[in-house]
């Protein structure tokens, strides 16, 4: 079974040289720590930056330089600032090659819910709806089950949707799954996790074909 850093490490293997990538808050942010050597990835922060760098040292902290999670950050050489409409122009325009974000629920049709629990959590969707409506390549990074032990990979999302038919891949603490033709297709098992365990933790339709390899991290 993977921890959060393990999930981030596995997702980092998906990165390709030259890609522009948007990493959501939470586990997705950790992906930046595991970018493979020799791979040049440019991080987009939807509040108006291409070329996000690591957190600043105490001396470098600048209140005018934050990421979409409102954390103080730095820039890399070749970075660019732009306004919010220009930022989402490049997102909707499909120029960001990979979006990684968290979710409360994902279903076998690729629908995702991650912005609202009616009567309970009303923080808002931020840029998530724009991101999922625009990207061709969206990976959801999340735990396979919620704190109550219920599966987050469903036949049909129960919470208000963030986007429909948009998720292509899910990486959880238990598995790597593709979302295709109305089903979750098991591609890789987390170390030490059996296909049976994954099946038990998945409420939506799961396709297990042949021998499923264990992932290498």
């Amino acid at each position: 079974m993977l921890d959060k850093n393990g999930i981030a490490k596995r997702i980092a293997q998906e990165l390709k040289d030259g890609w522009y990538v948007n990493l959501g808050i939470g586990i997705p942010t950790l992906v930046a720590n595991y970018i493979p050597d020799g791979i040049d990835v440019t991080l987009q922060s939807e509040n108006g930056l291409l070329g996000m760098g690591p957190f600043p040292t105490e001396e470098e902290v600048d209140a005018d330089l934050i990421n979409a999670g409102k954390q103080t950050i730095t820039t890399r050489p070749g970075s660019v600032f732009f306004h919010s409409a220009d930022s989402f122009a490049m997102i909707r325009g499909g120029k960001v090659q990979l979006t990684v974000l968290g979710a409360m629920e994902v279903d076998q049709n690729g629908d995702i819910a991650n912005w609202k629990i009616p009567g309970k959590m009303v923080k808002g969707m931020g840029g998530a709806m724009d991101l999922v409506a625009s990207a061709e390549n969206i990976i959801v990074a999340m735990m396979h089950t919620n704190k109550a032990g219920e599966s987050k990979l469903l036949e049909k999302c129960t919470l208000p949707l963030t986007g429909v038919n948009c998720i292509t891949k899910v990486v959880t603490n238990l598995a790597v799954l593709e979302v295709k033709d109305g089903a979750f297709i098991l591609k890789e098992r987390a170390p030490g996790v059996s296909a049976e365990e994954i099946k038990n933790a998945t409420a939506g339709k799961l396709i297990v074909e042949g021998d499923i390899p264990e992932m290498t991290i």
Partner: protein
Amino acid sequence: MANKVVANAEEAIEGIKSGMTLMLGGFGLCGIPEKCIAALAARPEIKDLTCISNNAGVDDFGLGLLLKNHQIKKMVSSYVGENDEFERQMLSGELEVELTPQGTLAEKCRAGGAGIPAFFTPTGYGTEIAEGKEVREYNGKKYILEESLTSDFAIVKAWKGDTKGNLIFKATARNFNPVMAMAGKVTIAEVEHLVEPGELDPNEIHTPGIYVNRIFEGKNYEKRIEQRTVRSAEG
């Protein structure tokens, strides 16, 4: 000669009345017009405001100050998660909230300023955001029709400005400021450094002065940080 320069925030907000719609720049607390917000908070008789702003400040800074005073009737925002008083007022029904996806919100402001009354966007298709909105398909993909936004006053914060109203923003403090500046019937800019025309390179200006009606230099910006994340110097 026409003069856009006003003395301070108190003078800048003259004419803002109860019931008006305001746009306020900033993302989180970054790049917010903190002087004008403080000046509005000092005029609690101005209320029933509709505030279009990506976020709603924190309890004791930014728009949180106006919320505490019950000056805001309605918020149009994309994310409002960092403010307890906000959540309390919303859940109790005192405050009306229209959640709008961040990119749609930015594009609505730009469109409002650009004389585009409506546009199609893929964002929100199939979600509750799309309820009641026209859906149309282009090249096999579904889009919803969103209408643009304008405001009685747009209030923005810039790094540098000149007396003609030309503005330059700094780093990610740019965010919603330029698009909101476009969409105000009256646009107020507060700046950290006010200079004479010609001192800003015409090639480097982010917001042309044509959009700015009033401008002033604010003193002693607090620029509060929400998430102070640092690494060790060796890291």
